[in-house]
Every structure is written in C-alpha cells, then in structure tokens.
C-alpha cells in the first residue's frame, strides 16, 4: 500500500491542519490528543471534507488534487470507513447493512469473499438480527464487515474500540488482527490506546494541532 498526502492544508477552528506524509505500511496508527486532527485526516481521505489545498494519491490513483481541480466523489474512492459508533443503518438488518455496500473493485484486486469476511468476524449467527439487538462489540464487527465488503483500497478506523469495555475490546481486537493477517487490507487506525496500537499497527504517526510531530514503529515510540 502506498498512500501519499502532499501539502494538505485545511483551516480548522483553532489551528490549520497541515500534513505532508507518505504511508507504506499495511496498518498505520494515527495517535494524538483529542482535537489534534485525527478524524479530520480520515474525513479528508474519505472525501467527506475537502482540503483547501493539496493532493491525495493512493496506489498511484489521484483522489484529490486541488491544483488540478480534482476531487473524486466519496462513493468512487473505494475507501472504507468505520467510525467510533459504527454508524450502522438502524432500519436495516445485519444482512441489509452488510450487503448495502457490497461491490466489486473495478480492478478486481480488493474484492473479499463474503463467506471469508463473515468467518473472520464471526458474523454468520447474527445475519438476521436487527441492529438494536446487537451488543457494542457486535455492532463494531458488523461495521467492520460492512466496510470490508465494499472492496476498500484502504480502511479507515476511527477509535472503533473506544466505546467498548475491556473484555469486548480484547475480543474485537483479536478480530481486527485476523482482518489484518488474513484479509490483508491496508488500514489507518485512529486510537488513544498505546496497547491497541502496539497490538495491531506496524507504524505510528503522532498528530498534534493538525501536524505530524513524530513517526516510527510502536515499540520505538511507546
């Protein structure tokens, strides 16, 4: 995976978000205090927010280039997103949520078999349940599977374990490790937890007030 953010600038309420970075490791953590710009970075990558200037390229494909007036629509970016609360569609069943974004990558390289994703995340017994009947950990697993089944080139995870208790965190983290090792999907993982980052990520970018102030491997930084 090669993700390049070049001279990304975006004025925020209390500081200007400025990032220029290239990411090549499979799972990279975004670490930093609340309000440091981690979610903003995910939103910019997903195309939900437009930077004032800069460019974004993933695996040689330009998604945003303000100088050229290019902004690939969110739906065509093939970037999966798992927010903190899962943001599942409450009016659909688990199956409905999972199939909502099912699609094949135009290049066919990131399409994951449904059965494999269901197996890795242990979701087969939940398929006919309503969203209201799921526990917090189950919701996060469904949100993760939903994003994976949309054939993402890159998966963005915004503190997916933050709202879970310790036991559920441990279980969902094990599922995330299986996603990393068996499905091999590139991930950007936002977290406040050094334990989660050390258990899951190959590299860490530390953000503060919209800038990357340090980067390295988890064992070097924590």
């Amino acid at each position, binding site marked *: 995976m090669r993700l390049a953010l070049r001279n990304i600038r975006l004025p925020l309420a209390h500081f200007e978000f400025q990032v220029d970075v290239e990411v090549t490791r499979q799972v990279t953590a975004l670490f930093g205090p609340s309000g440091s710009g981690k979610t903003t970075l995910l939103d910019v990558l997903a*195309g939900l927010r437009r930077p004032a200037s800069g460019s974004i390229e993933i695996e040689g494909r330009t998604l945003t280039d303000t100088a050229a007036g290019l902004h690939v629509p969110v739906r065509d970016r093939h970037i999966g*997103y798992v927010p903190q609360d899962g*943001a599942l569609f409450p009016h659909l069943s688990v199956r409905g949520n999972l199939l*909502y*974004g099912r699609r094949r990558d135009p290049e066919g390289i990131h399409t994951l078999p449904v059965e494999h994703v269901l197996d890795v995340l242990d979701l087969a017994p939940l398929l006919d349940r309503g969203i209201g009947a799921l526990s917090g950990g189950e919701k996060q697993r469904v949100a993760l599977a*939903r*994003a994976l089944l*949309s054939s993402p080139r890159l998966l963005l995870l915004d503190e997916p374990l933050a709202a879970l208790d310790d036991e559920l965190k441990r279980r969902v983290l094990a599922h995330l490790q299986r996603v990393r090792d068996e499905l091999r999907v590139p991930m950007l993982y936002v977290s406040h937890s050094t334990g989660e980052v050390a258990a899951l990520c190959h590299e860490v970018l530390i953000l503060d007030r919209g800038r990357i102030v340090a980067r390295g491997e988890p064992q070097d930084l924590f």
Partner: protein
Amino acid sequence: MTAGDWQVVGFTIRVAALATLLILPPGLLVAWCLARLHWPGKSVVETLVALPLVMPPVATGLILLKAVGRRGPIGRLLGELGIDVVFTWRAVVLAMAVMSFPLLVRTARVAFEGVPVRLEQMARTLGAGEVRLFFTVTLPLASRGVLGGLLLSFARALGEFGATILVAGNIPGRTTTLSLAIYQLVQLGRDDQAYRLMAFTVVIAFATVWWSEWFLRRARRP
C-alpha cells in the same frame, strides 16, 4: 346522510388525497433541499414556501385565479392544450395542494434534519449515489415524520375553503367540497344538514390529525 352528502364527502376525500399525493414529490424535494443544502437566497425560498400558511387563503386564491385563469400566464398555456382549470375539480385540487404544501415541507424538513449526517456519509463511502442514498437511508429514516406531515397536509386540504371558493367556485356536484357545502347550507338555513356534515368533518379531521401526531411522536423518538 343523504346521497348528496355522501357525494360531497367522497369528492372531498378524493381531491384532498390527490392534492396530497401531487405535492409529495415536490414537497420532499424542497424539504430535502432546505434541510441539506445551503445557497444564497435560501431564506427567500423558505419565506415563499411558508407564505400560504400566513396569507389570507382568499388572497392566495386570487393569485391562483390570476395565474390559471383563461387569460393568466399558466391558464393560457393549459388552454392551448385543451385543459380548463378554473371552476373545475382541477382547481379544487390546485387550491388544496397550494394551501397544504407548506405543512408538508415544514414537517418533512424537520424529519430530514433529524437523520444523522454521519449515516448518509457512511452510505456514500459504501458507494451510494445521492438518489440511492435518499431512497435507502434518508427517506426510510425520515419516514415517520414524512408520513406525519403527509397526514397533516391531507387534513389541511380537507378543510380548505378560502382559496377553493375563489379559484373553483361552488358548483354542486362538480366543485363543492365539505367546507363549501357547510357554508352554503348555513347560508340557506339548512342547519341540520350543515351539522351532519360538520360532525363528519370533525371526525375525519380528528382521526387524521391524531394519526399524524402519532407518527410525529414516534419520529421524535431516538
């Protein structure tokens, strides 16, 4: 109830239902635009949409009469197509539609604003275009509010009087609605018949507004 009374009741329900159905697509479109888009002059559109709520219905009727009358800009065009509006059932539908439009737009707008933007953003990351997103996420999640607004609009259409009498007249068997019939019966001193129709109107209006409030209460629940 005489056969004539039932004819008036049946006619009123049919034209009110048709008017409500006709305003549904443009009403939802305007409500969605007001809830989700920002553009210069938006407040002018908001004000124009609300005008029939506060203007004297007779004044609205006069505007309609000028617009769709045989010498009016729209009436002339329709006349060339062989369609007469003024003093026909079409004029009743038009008056009801115009007078109930703001109620639908206001309630549907609130319902759309209550749909979490994050869910719509997630649908886009899953590949949904704007039309699919509207019909599979926004509208289903706003459906209770929209149904409540639709019923309120229907109730408003049932009771429409001022605009209708100007643009459609009060032609027995052709344009006489419940409100017009009650007015005419009182004028003629046939109070017993007027009370019967009034009682019927109260029952329909009560049932419709009660049902509408039921939907709106459920829409407000998380």
